[in-house]
């Protein structure tokens, strides 16, 4: 039998894992404190925070899905060219011949669907446990922004396969922007303020009056650069505020005493 302790006692191993895995309070804290990836996590969390029945783990799962989307998304970018000539074909190549191409694409797609669902469930849980109440009302606001960004990421990604479904779904979606008050050319006060099909908010979103090559490019840049950076910043603030506002909210003190 291979003597595993030789490896665990080696200098290489000890340089990576600085503490032996001894189940003491101190060690648990050090593991979190010393780990760059877990650094965002508080060193200590209250007992009820580990209760799946209470938190559903939805925030964490959402973040995990975000990481999955980032990794698969970056990989997909190696093959995808966001131009009208190639977008659909590149999607097809991923689908049919690139090794693990369909796997990556489907993972990206399913993770995106799931993330929207888990964000909603997270929000539902936060609402039901009253975690939006002071002092956490600001973080609720951040959460709403994160929800919007998640939906926008989902929407911008919808166009990228450049198939009929994508083009028509986004056509319908962006047609709603025509009716934006003041900024849309079919919205209240829009025409009176000089809004036309070629200068309103929908035009700014599409870079044209129809869903064409310019819209594909805009949606691509929004999807892979602008929105991910924005959502990353807000995620960081969200996590930071969770800690600063006293960790994950718990049951009322009266309940705790039970």
């Amino acid at each position: 039998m291979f003597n595993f302790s030789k490896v665990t006692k080696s200098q290489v191993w000890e340089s990576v894992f600085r503490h032996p895995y001894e189940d003491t309070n101190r060690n648990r804290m050090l593991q979190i404190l010393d780990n760059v990836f877990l650094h965002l996590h508080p060193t200590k969390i209250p007992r009820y925070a580990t209760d799946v029945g209470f938190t559903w783990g939805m925030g964490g799962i959402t973040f995990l899905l975000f990481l999955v989307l980032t990794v698969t998304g970056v990989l997909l970018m190696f093959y995808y060219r966001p131009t009208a000539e190639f977008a659909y074909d590149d999607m097809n190549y991923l689908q049919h011949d690139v090794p693990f191409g369909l796997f990556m694409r489907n993972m990206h797609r399913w993770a995106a669907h799931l993330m929207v669902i888990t964000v909603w469930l997270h929000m539902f849980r936060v609402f039901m446990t009253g975690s939006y109440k002071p002092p956490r009302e600001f973080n609720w606001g951040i959460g709403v922004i994160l929800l919007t960004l998640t939906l926008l990421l989902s929407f911008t990604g919808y166009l990228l396969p450049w198939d009929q479904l994508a083009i028509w779904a986004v056509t319908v979606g962006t047609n709603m922007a025509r009716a934006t008050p003041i900024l849309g050319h079919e919205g209240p006060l829009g025409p009176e303020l000089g809004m036309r099909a070629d200068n309103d908010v929908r035009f700014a979103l599409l870079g044209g009056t129809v869903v064409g090559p310019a819209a594909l490019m805009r949606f691509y840049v929004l999807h892979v650069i602008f929105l991910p950076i924005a959502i990353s910043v807000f995620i960081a603030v969200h996590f930071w505020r969770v800690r600063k506002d006293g960790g994950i909210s718990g049951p009322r003190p009266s309940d705790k005493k039970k």
Partner: protein
Amino acid sequence: MSEIPEQKSNEKSVGTWFLIFSGLLGLFTAGAVYDETFTRRPWKHYQEEFKTVKLQELDKQLQAAKSEADSTQIAELDKKIQEESKKLDAPEFKTLGEKIKNLNYELADLETKSKFEKANSDEYYYFFKHALQEGHDGSAYEQKLRETEKIIEELNPQIQAKKDEIAQAMLPIDEINKNIKALQNEKNVLEEKIIAIQEKIEAASHLGVEIKQFVLADYTKGNFSDYLPKVERCQTCHAGINDPVMAEVTQQPFGFHKDQHELLKKHNIEKLGCTTCHAGQGIALTEHDAHEGDHHWLFPMLETIQDPYTRANTDSTKITKHDYTQSSCFKCHKTANYLPGAEVMLTGKKLVMDLGCNGCHALPLEEKLVKNGPPLNAIAKKTNPEWIATWLKNPRDFYPNTRMPDFHLTDEETESITAFLMDLDKTSDYKPVTGFVSGSASNGKKLVEEIGCQACHTVGDKFPVSNRLKEGNGFGPDLNKVGTKVNATWLYDWLKNPKNYHVESRMPSLRLSDSELQDVTTYLLTLKDTNYKPTVTLSSLEDAAKIEAGRKNILKYGCYGCHNINGTENEGNISVSLADIARKTTEELDFGDRLQVENPNKIEKTWQDWIFHKIKEPRDYTTERIKSVMPSFGLSDEEAHALTVLMKGWILDFQNQEYAEHLTPEKKGFYEGQNFIRQRNCVGCHLFEGEVGGLIYSHYENPDEAPPKLMGQGDKTQEDWLTNLLNNVSPIRPWLKIRMPSFGFNNEQVTTVHKYFQGAVGKEVGQTYFADFKPNPENLKAGEELFNIAQCTKCHLVNGVAGKSLDPSSLAPDLGKAKTRLKPDWIVDWLKDPQAITPGTKMPGFFYYDESTGERYPLTQEHFEGNADKQIIAIRDYVVSLSK
């Protein structure tokens, strides 16, 4: 914080959950890898199998080639080669070999030395030049450079001397090698086939597993007029599709492309790919994705499409499975009328043109389509109101094969339309000629049977109408019930001059005399429908409200689409355009109640099922909210199938026109003419290129009594002569009883006929011949002598004068017309070998051609020293000079 009591850490284990979820994760990952490697890459397996199959096939061919080859001769050559190579084993050659080996070593040493010095020289040259460039002192390098150059110069003659020495030593060996090579070449010639197969085996044994693809860079245009590449990977699995080696292999998917019409020679796979014709998803690499796709997909492989007809006929014939492939032919060959292999699609196209779909729908056809029915403005003078009403109520009751569809009119609608049509006579200025008196019906019957009425009409029960296509005796109306339908004065006038009633009528004049006309009219009027009973009781047809209601019904049902009706000139198509019908999805088609589970007539929810049933039972999608007015044509399953196949190709494609059939003006004219000869039923009497037409030939036991075959007519006759013939018919073959009718074509139509004949032989329209024909007298004299030797006048007339002919049916065309009628080259070809041009002709071949020697035997040895070609030209010149 101090209020909160110290809590112990949570020691509840989640190990079970961890195990379950990580186990699931592991399982799904393994599943994903399996899917990636095996499920989704069936082509790997196929290609390995293909390699085995191909090698087996090649091995079979190799064995066959080996058994074919002359083994004794090969063995003899092998023996000689061995003898020659044995000579090299002799001791003197052994020592010589050693010597040459040593010399080669010495040469190699010298050459290496030279090469090194060359390298040094290059280096010093660079440093020397570099020094000069930088302004340093380069004299040291220059000196070294000169030294190396000197060494090289000294080495060169040494190397050359060594080479010469080797060449000298090699001479005896070279001699033997040359012999061996000559023998080897001789053997190679004998084993040519075997070697070729062995080379293929060698290549096949290195076949790797890879995706094979063609990229058609500019095949389609996208939504933004940008070219989109089309990727074809069908050959990744169908590896033998373009591989002649696999011609005999039937194992799918490795077989060679079925090619009975030489399709692949005309359609280069590398340029057009596979999905251009077969549809499907070329880029996909699994059978399901490539062939069928999901149910939302518009373009599955056409072989997977099934309509009720193909579902019912899969067992009896495998061909129906591939019928839908023919719809692709339409995309490029829009104007073609006869394409081998596209018979079903073209039947559909003929049906569309013959049934007059253009009356109500805009169609993607490029042909000029006319209104399909007769004008109705003066119908009151042609027939009687009872017949009109009976006819309208259900046309197929009267003529089962009629193309007039059944509109399922109510009695009220029928009566109103009848009233309107009777009233319409007031707007017409048609006046029939008078002068009809009864003649001899028996003589009329004889005339009808002789002069060719049966080429277009059904008369009598001898030749029943075959189908709904306007071809042969189904071209014009069935005359067996005409006596019930028409008035005597109208019929007499119609036969005398059809253009009087209907200016655009396709009915020709047969140049009947007045008494013949009376006989024929009398005969036709005796042909009555014994079962005829008016089905609608008519009353007060003059009622203005009724007439107005009739006008509205005419507009509602779009009668003007097929019939000329005064007052409707500005009405447009009553129904939808069918130009892009194949792009409709099932969600865009209204199936009415026919998808309901409990409906006994439930149909499947596919595009082709909808179209098929719409054509067959047009009103069956009607629901309480959505009414339809399309009439029923009483089509058979087969006809509905042909129409569905055709319409599957009606799609406005962004296809690059570079890929479509390139039409030369000749070809375009040919297609136009093909269409024309069908529209005028020339095919009823004559046989044309591609064995098309000649539908009347079955009426004649003696083929000489039938109308002539017109294959290769463009090579044979001059255009001016044909123009003259069409404008002013005079019989060329006096023995024929059937008459070439006077069609009264205008100039444009005559040109269309020329375009057909000239286009069929790839010639331009507008040539003239014999314009400056001046044969030399010697030729003429020899020609006359040969003419007499061959006894041409025994059968042929010359300027209307018959020679010694005995039997009128063995008469041959008048040679006096040769100059104006025939083309010079054709006369030569005809004299050379008449059977090659018209198999079965009575014209004898005077100049026998011996294929084994490639010589043509002359008629006599005296003329032109027995040169057959010169004799033929002499006869030609003499015959042409006979014209007055």
